[in-house]
């Protein structure tokens, strides 16, 4: 039962961290940091996403290497879509 109790407390801890991070990202948005703002906003969001994925979705403890390969390849192909279409829009003004 204790191992069970410990895991509940662990999940509550993750939950509270996520709430704090939500507050943080909302708060930081009111501070003018110029180009840093979107970087911080996405950074905090990525940390929260990692917390949910690693601990809530048990990606951290899993023995299945395949799960990680699938996630990483999914994100890689998403970056392909975003990156290469951005390559078009970013350089369109040059010609």
């Amino acid at each position, binding site marked *: 039962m204790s191992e069970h109790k410990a895991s509940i407390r662990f999940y509550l801890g993750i939950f509270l961290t996520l709430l704090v991070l939500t507050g943080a990202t909302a708060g930081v948005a009111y501070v003018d940091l110029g180009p840093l703002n979107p970087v911080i906003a996405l950074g905090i969001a990525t940390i929260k996403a990692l917390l949910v994925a690693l601990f809530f979705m048990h990606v951290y403890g899993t023995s299945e290497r*395949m799960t990680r390969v699938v996630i990483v*390849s*999914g994100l890689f*192909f998403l970056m*392909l*879509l975003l990156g*290469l*279409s951005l*390559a*078009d*829009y*970013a*350089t*369109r*003004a*040059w*010609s």
Partner: protein
Amino acid sequence: MATVAYPSPERQNYLNQEYGIKSWLLTTDHKRIALLYLLSITFFFFIGGFFALLIRLELLTPAGDLVQADTYNKLFTMHGLVMVFFFLIPVVPAVLGNFLVPIMIGTKDLAFPRINLLSWYLYIAAGALMMHCMLTGGVDTGWTFYAPFSTAFTNTKIVEAGLAAFIAGFSSIFTGLNFIVTIHRMRAPGMTWTRMPLFIWAHYATSIIQVLGTPVIAITIVLVAAERLLHLGIFDPKLGGDPLLFQHLFWFYSHPAVYIMILPSMGVVSEIIPCFARKRIFGYTFVALSSVAIAVFGFLVWAHHMFVAGMSVYAALIFSMLSYLVAVPSAIKVFNWTATLYKGSISYTTPMLYAFGFLGLFTMGGLTGLFLAALGIDVHVTDTYFVVAHFHYIMVGGVLMGYLGGMHFWWPKISGRMYPEGWGRLAALIVFIGFNLTFFPQFILGYMGMPRRYWQYPPEFQVLNVLSTAGSTVLAVGYLLPMVYFLWSMRYGKIAEDNPWAAAGLEWMTTSPPPTYNFEETPVVDFEAYDYENIKAKEAPVAR
């Protein structure tokens, strides 16, 4: 031709396991689902083919005198939609893949049999919706349904056809997902990745594209539907939206989709050539990894469809170079297949004729791709009949030849009967001749400058168009023949042995047709793939 009773009843197989409509419509046996797909896909192939014939008939004369302009636009749109979403994408994975992937890796069934049946029902629902859309007005935007024409300047049934493609997309995703999990999790003991047949490697690569690419066209269809129904003008230039964004999202899927179409046929050819050359495939690892390389590089090149669309010159440079990168794995495959023939013992059975046809036509299709990837030439030939000829060489010359070769190669395993060899070879020859007569003139038409999707054209293009139309009728005859003699063979064909071609592979080590659970007991694999030196060729495996 002695008419023998159906394979002796005491030999249980997936066909005589149980009878009745329910046993077919509610089956979760991957082999029966493959046959359900075979029937429905053949139906849609002939619908699409019929539209193609009408298009070719219209183009017999420069003036638009067979059908009106609107009808012609709907004809080539429906020809494109039906052929792409309801024939080319599902055909080899859903028919041959569904039937063979579990058997080839030595397992009883796919990982998720019920999702496999759901995939077929989604295909049927999508097909019914597309048929309804066709019969009640059709779509006139071209299968590429570019914005802003599709979103604001036509009132044909875009949303209905889009929904049909959306549902067909999920059918494709579920097939791909099923294959990946099955190949990863359910291989027989001893079936390591390097002992897997190349047919499996090709379907593994295809499934990666299906899972990663199809959702992007799903969202593109949703965005077009949202713009038409809810005035959410995401591509509307009046709001500052960009029609090119539609093209980016559309081609991000639609180019990898052409690799979904060709890779499975490459897998089929990689099985046929070693068997009828009695030789181990040349460069196994290179052919296997080139399939995966095509799947991954396939996602880098989509904007070579947009060189003249108004995208930036520098991005066009990047995509042109990457398009040459994706040509290398295809070249590797062709060289390896040709090298496999060296010092072989080659017999000219029907599957082998189709494999030769594939090799020839896919090579020409691939090489003309080099013309289109060169920026300077693409400006002149994009959106002309040069492009039409290029992708028909790959799809009809490649995908369809591979599919027909595979159908003949595994027909004994699927039906327990042999097809008539003489008719098979005749049909292969007619298809090859009809195909070249139809599509080779279109290369010349393309470079002469005849744009695609033209209802009427300048008179100087008529001669080549007449040749092309003549070829299309020969091609149509060539495609009808196999359907006839396959049906005929179900009843009167010679009873097939378990391994009529003395081929390598687990599917030839079980009975023809196989029992419902494929093997009496799960096989243990202790041999390499294609070890033809240990398999004695039958003295005359095939009637000379």
